[in-house]
């Protein structure tokens, strides 16, 4: 933490960067929120710990509209999102300076949701909660976000300065496609029922869309008048499903599986499952592909090679 602040202060004071994008304490215990810091004084409130869930990459699009260089603190998985944004020309590489920080997993705020918490802290292998009803402990291992339980490792896809040892290729934790495969096994009717039930919880707050780094159209098709697709009140019960399916298609090949959609959903909809289904299909049909691995090149869906699978060779065709 100390080194993060020192480095960023140095960058600011030496004029290498004009502002810093990081996290500060949020309004509620155990929550952190993205924040811009313009000087050393403001930087004092920067924090970095296991509660810093938000992926900061997307804020760099807005930062790019200001002059100068923005420094950003990136966890390994967030760096893929930024790299993808650079590939899509949404962020100029020379306008950002990236401080790569290590990550040991983010705490899922749902663990202490609705429990009247006054403060949260990590004590050894326990998550310690002070609540209106007294002191409580949760085993830390059970408190991480889903995405961290299937963490793909500590490597940063892009950075300027590394504040952790260059991560060796740490093996993928768990099988991130397990739940997708389980769903695939189900019958069409069961799957439809599952998603209809799940999406019926959607309140169309657009948190997923706003948090998603790949969802960065200047004007969303669901907001714009250009295509008669502007959505107001749902006219049929399929509209929530439609929104999420269309969104999943729009980010296919560009989704890095950062898991922000599921993290921010107030209705606890496992949105990452849709994206992972698309990733799994891409991997199966076109070979393993990780969006954001490179800031150049083409995603399998906007590339063509003569070895590409034929339309009728796909699974389930």
């Amino acid at each position, binding site marked *: 933490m100390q080194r993060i602040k020192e480095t960023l202060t140095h960058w600011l004071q030496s004029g290498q960067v004009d502002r810093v994008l990081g996290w500060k304490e949020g309004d509620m215990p155990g929550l952190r929120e993205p924040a811009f810091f313009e000087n050393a004084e403001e930087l004092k409130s920067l924090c970095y710990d296991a509660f810093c869930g938000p992926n900061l990459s997307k804020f760099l699009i807005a930062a790019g509209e200001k002059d100068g260089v923005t420094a950003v603190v990136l966890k390994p998985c967030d760096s893929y999102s930024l790299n993808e944004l650079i590939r*899509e020309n949404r962020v100029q590489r020379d306008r950002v300076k990236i401080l790569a920080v290590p990550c040991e997993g983010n705490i899922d705020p749902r663990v202490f949701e609705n429990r009247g918490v006054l403060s949260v802290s990590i004590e050894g292998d326990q998550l310690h909660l002070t609540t209106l009803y007294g002191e409580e402990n949760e085993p830390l291992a059970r408190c991480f976000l889903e995405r961290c339980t299937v963490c793909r490792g500590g490597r940063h896809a892009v950075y300027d300065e590394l504040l952790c040892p260059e991560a060796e290729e740490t093996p993928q934790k768990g099988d991130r496609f397990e739940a997708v495969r389980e769903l695939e096994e189900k019958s069409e009717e069961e799957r439809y029922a599952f998603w209809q039930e799940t999406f019926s919880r959607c309140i169309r707050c657009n948190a997923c869309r706003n948090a998603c780094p790949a969802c960065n*159209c*200047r*004007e969303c*098709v669901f907001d714009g008048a*250009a*295509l008669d*697709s502007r959505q107001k009140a749902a006219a049929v019960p399929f509209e929530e499903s439609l929104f999420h399916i269309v969104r999943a298609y729009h980010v296919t090949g560009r989704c890095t599986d950062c898991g922000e959609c599921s993290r921010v959903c107030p209705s606890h909809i496992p949105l990452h499952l849709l994206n992972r289904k698309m990733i799994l299909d891409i991997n199966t049909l076109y070979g393993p592909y990780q969006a954001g691995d490179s800031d150049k090149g083409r995603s399998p869906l*906007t590339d063509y090679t*003569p070895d590409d699978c034929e339309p009728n060779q796909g699974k389930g065709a």
Partner: protein
Amino acid sequence: MPKIGVFVCHCGSNIAGTVDVEKVAAAARTIPGVVVACDYRYMCSEAGQETITKAIREYGLDGVVVCSCSPRMHEATFRRAAEREGLNPYMVEIANIREQCSWIHKNREEATEKAIVLMRAAVAKVKRDTPLTAGRSGVTRRALVIGGGIAGLSTALDVANAGYEVDIVEKEPTIGGKMAQLDKTFPTLDCSACILTPKMVEAAQNENINLYTYSEVEKVSGYVGNFTVTIRKKARFVREDRCTGCGACMEKCPSRKAKNEFNCGLNTRSAIYIPFAQAIPNVAVIDAQHCLKLQTGKCGVCEKVCAAGAIDYTQQDELIQREYGAIVAATGFQPIRPYQFGEYGYGRYPDVITSLELERLMNAAGPTDGELRCPSDGRKPKNIVFIQCVGSRGQTCRDKSYCSKICCMYTAKHAMLIRDHWPDMDVHVFYIDVRTPGKNFDEFYRRAAEEYQVDYRKGQVGKIYEEDGHLMVQGSDLLEDRQVLMPADLVVLAVAVEPSPDARKLATMLTASMDNNDFFTEAHPKLRPVESPTAGIFLSGMCQGPKDIPETVSQAGAAAAKVIGLLSKKELTANPCTAHPEEVRCNGCGECEKVCPYGAISYEEKELRVMGRREKRRVAVVNTALCQGCGACTVACPSGVMDLQGFSNRQILAEVDAICR
């Protein structure tokens, strides 16, 4: 509200036989905006078109929907009719209720319902049509022929003789193709080389023809009239301008183990070689894989013996970029290697060979100097068995489903030639059917069977095995209804032909379509047999389907006529249905540029007015001269910013809505 007219065609009974056309017209009248709807026996007839033009005049129509056959058939007819009456031709939409409805349905009620839905979608689309104006584009007066076999050479010569420049790209070191490997040709038995080589020489000497041998097409961009092609001229390691073709290098080359492709691998050749005596260009080529100098750095004999100083081990592949107005695919075929037919033992028994291998064994320039010998031990065969339809006309995954067309005739030729040269040899032919349509073809086959006493047996061979050093052929004779077992010294498999394996890669580059067997597809199987559905791409020879030499040459000439027709035009009408980005919503992500097959999209930093502010942004720009309106960018754009004139996203969604209503 625009005023729309709907015109439903009976197409005789083609549509009216399955679709209640009056009901379709009646349904159209209920749609808001449709001011006139009627049906007529033949809309494409003079009187039918008059119905449309009269309605445009009387009702002051803004848009026309014709419910008829595929737009590929008569869209142009109806557009011209509308234009005559002063209506923009792009305000005409076709609802295809024939190919997509009446022809594929039997139930009248269902077909009528579907025709109404298709009509409704077209009305929804035409309401959102905007008048478009077609631009013009020029034509590069040069043709590219891909493949230098008899098909490519014939097309090239015909085009060149009409006064246009032609480039031939041939992947082998010499032109000539498969025909150069043949011994005699049916049904006249003239020597293949004797009729082919004059054509090769003629092509080489024609000042309008430019040969790129040992070259391959690497990249194709552009569109009809204006293709840009990158050709990879592979390194020969021999300078074409110096080599005299004297052959001294071939004699001295110490590496002599490479299989001789020209003789189907039946003998070997040196690493530096000229494929055959009449090769054009008569220039040696070094097979880098077998060249000791290129593999190990030690040797250099050919360089020492070459009096012309033509050897250049440092030669690199060369990339050549050229412009063309038309491209002809003449990539030809290859016989299959029948390894998958274990029952025949090809590859296991050296004396089981393919017909092309037999051609080489009978050819005076072949590995046996034209003396028919068994490959195993060089003895003179006594009993020869031919097996027809190996890999053709089958229903399993090992087989091609099609008839390879040429095998019946060449087997009759082989049988006849063998009986003629070596009357002491016995020839048996196992066949499913003997198919010999064609001028003087059946007479030819009958001569083999009757005059030369070739033993034709209707039936297939089930097994070939070795017994006491002899091949035994076990087959069935369906006419005598019994199993037969006969010894054979030589077994010849009349194997199926298949398109050249490079054809698919080429089709992709040309955006030309192919069928399931990788034969190029014609624009229309009957009416446009030598054109690909992709404008400016033409088809010559076997790449389109199995053909014999006379047919190949006729088709090559037909392709040439089409090429000449195109190259003789001063300018072409460009397609006005091009893509356009809505700049203020474009985020410059680059996905559209990546999927554009025509290189029509680029990016510019543009100053835009956004919500009253001036902002500099990177946005997509479409070069409408290059855009072919394929629509790939419109679906690739994540923000739905790219739109296609005449097929706008809004129009397509309106069609979907109309269908789903």
